């Protein structure tokens, strides 16, 4: 993936906040503390936090190329929804991100949970299978995208060749060339790459459930399904919450995979266009005032992604509390 702040987010919730004995005594003097902390603080602030904060400020200004001009109020935001073709592309890209998220939840995360559950009870080859499932996570989204666009090639791709060979000529579709199948194909390819991640998280969650609970349920005559539905699922809620939020953040930041499979314009005909591509095009392939308009878009995306993640986290915490 990208610089995956996207894939590493709110796991800190579960880290125990305990301090070992002896910690906290003899805090060193201020200059020593400063020497330890300052390098990281400066690097992180100057190249990460400060630019992010500046986006909000810049969104309110006019730009001419790289030069910042006069205060523009909300004009840049207004442009986003009125200037052609942005006013057409933006809502369409947003919808595609929503489909992408829903599709990923249904396919990738459901499969991840299924594999975790099946691997938890099976012994044979467990470690090997887990390793195989997370293998594609390592590969660059761009490489995955190019690899699958070759595999899905309508003429020479092995998938269509195989379909023709077994007599399913009618099924040998131009997968990435048809607006109806392009986005679903990308959702499946993305799931192929990432399914190991929810699987790992769900596996860790299942391991954390004490076996006494399962034993007790079994003695009470619970079937396998009841055990899963009534005992394991509710206890997995925190993990489900984390997986949902990380999927959301990841999907709304999608870029490389779609660039490789649909190009910078989300071909065919914008059928795979997403917010990440629209943002890139607005900033670096837009007009002379591109930087102001792109900053406005960055602010809206930031508020939306961050806001919805927070709401989701709160919602899942609320559900947990109701269950306990």
């Amino acid at each position, binding site marked *: 993936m990208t610089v995956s702040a996207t894939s590493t987010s709110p796991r800190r919730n579960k880290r125990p906040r305990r301090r070992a004995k002896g910690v906290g005594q003899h805090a060193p003097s201020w200059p020593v503390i400063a020497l330890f902390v300052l390098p990281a603080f400066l690097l*992180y602030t100057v190249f990460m936090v400060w630019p992010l904060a500046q*986006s909000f400020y810049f969104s309110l200004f006019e730009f001419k190329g790289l030069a910042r001009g006069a205060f523009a109020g909300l004009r840049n935001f207004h442009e986003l929804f009125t200037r052609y073709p942005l006013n057409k592309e933006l809502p369409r890209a947003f919808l595609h991100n929503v489909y992408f998220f829903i599709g990923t939840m249904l396919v990738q995360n459901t499969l991840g949970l299924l594999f975790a559950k099946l691997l938890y009870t099976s012994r044979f080859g467990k470690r090997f299978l887990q390793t195989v499932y997370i293998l594609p996570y390592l590969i660059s989204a761009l490489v995955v995208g190019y690899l699958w666009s070759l595999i899905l090639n309508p003429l020479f791709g092995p998938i269509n060749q195989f379909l023709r060979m077994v007599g399913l000529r009618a099924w040998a579709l131009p997968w990435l060339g048809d607006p109806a199948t392009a986005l679903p194909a990308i959702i499946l390819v993305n799931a192929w790459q990432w399914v190991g991640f929810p699987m790992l998280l769900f596996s860790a969650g299942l391991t954390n459930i004490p076996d006494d609970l399962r034993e007790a349920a079994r003695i009470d005559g619970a079937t396998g399904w009841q055990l899963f539905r009534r005992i394991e699922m509710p206890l997995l809620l925190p993990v489900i919450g984390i997986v949902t939020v990380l999927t959301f953040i990841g999907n709304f930041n999608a870029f490389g995979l779609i660039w490789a499979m649909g190009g910078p314009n989300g071909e065919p005909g914008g059928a795979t266009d997403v917010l990440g591509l629209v943002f890139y095009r607005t900033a670096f392939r837009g007009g002379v005032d591109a930087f102001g308009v792109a900053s406005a878009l960055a602010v809206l995306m930031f508020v939306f992604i961050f806001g919805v993640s927070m709401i989701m986290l709160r919602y899942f915490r609320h559900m947990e509390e109701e269950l306990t």
Partner: protein
Amino acid sequence: MNLSSTSSLRARAKISDLLVHVLLWGYAAVVLLPLLLVVNNALRPTRDIFRHPLALATSPSFASFVKAWEKANFNTYFFNSLFITVSAVVLATAVSALASYVLGRYKFPFSNALLAFFLAGLMLPFRLAIVPLFLLLDHLGLIDSRIGLILVYAATGIPFSVFILSAFFRQLPGELSEAARIDGANEWTIFGRIMLPLVRPALATVVVFQFVPLWNDFFFPLVLLRSTSKWTLPVGMTRFFGEFQADWSTLFAGLIITTLPLIVIFLLATKQIIAGLTAGIGK
């Protein structure tokens, strides 16, 4: 329960067991087949691939690798990627280890707020800051510069590194450093000689876990690097796929060259990767 129903239950359990294994190993094939296909097709000429897409490379040849490496600039891209990624990982890990040590082990005014400030970076969709970042780097003369990209990458690695390392430093017993202090060791000696070696497993996780996304990143070099002589593998890949469109064998070889270092890391550090992916979830 009588005998016949027990045995039918056992038979049913056996069938469901079989189905589970078919499903799990079947999906493993879905993961592995495309990867094997890449290797297979990189080892035979494009003519063969087009004529018999599903055939094996009977007389394997590395000609396509040589072609991608020399003619398609993969040698340049590869060493740029290596230099930029390794520098950024080293820089981020070094500064994060320093900061995590005092943040994990001492309480001082604002220490918790500072830790929270670093950890907030885990939640930030950082690419959205590209416009101000571009202007900042332009101001510093660091557009189209590998150093600029290294600084940006190092900054993005800090939140995760501090998250992991500060938790590890916190869990170390206090007696060791107390004893050293009584013996007259100063803070730097305690950090470098005693504490740092003790968090080595965490350092491995942090290094591996920064390396992978930086090696794979496409967005920042796309925006921040102009000259092809400075490009990293992912940006080079976009040009490569345009130029060599009809030369599938070379395309497949390029995909392998780009991924090879990650495969090596994966084989050496599967444990660290799993630890990083599940950080915070437990066992």
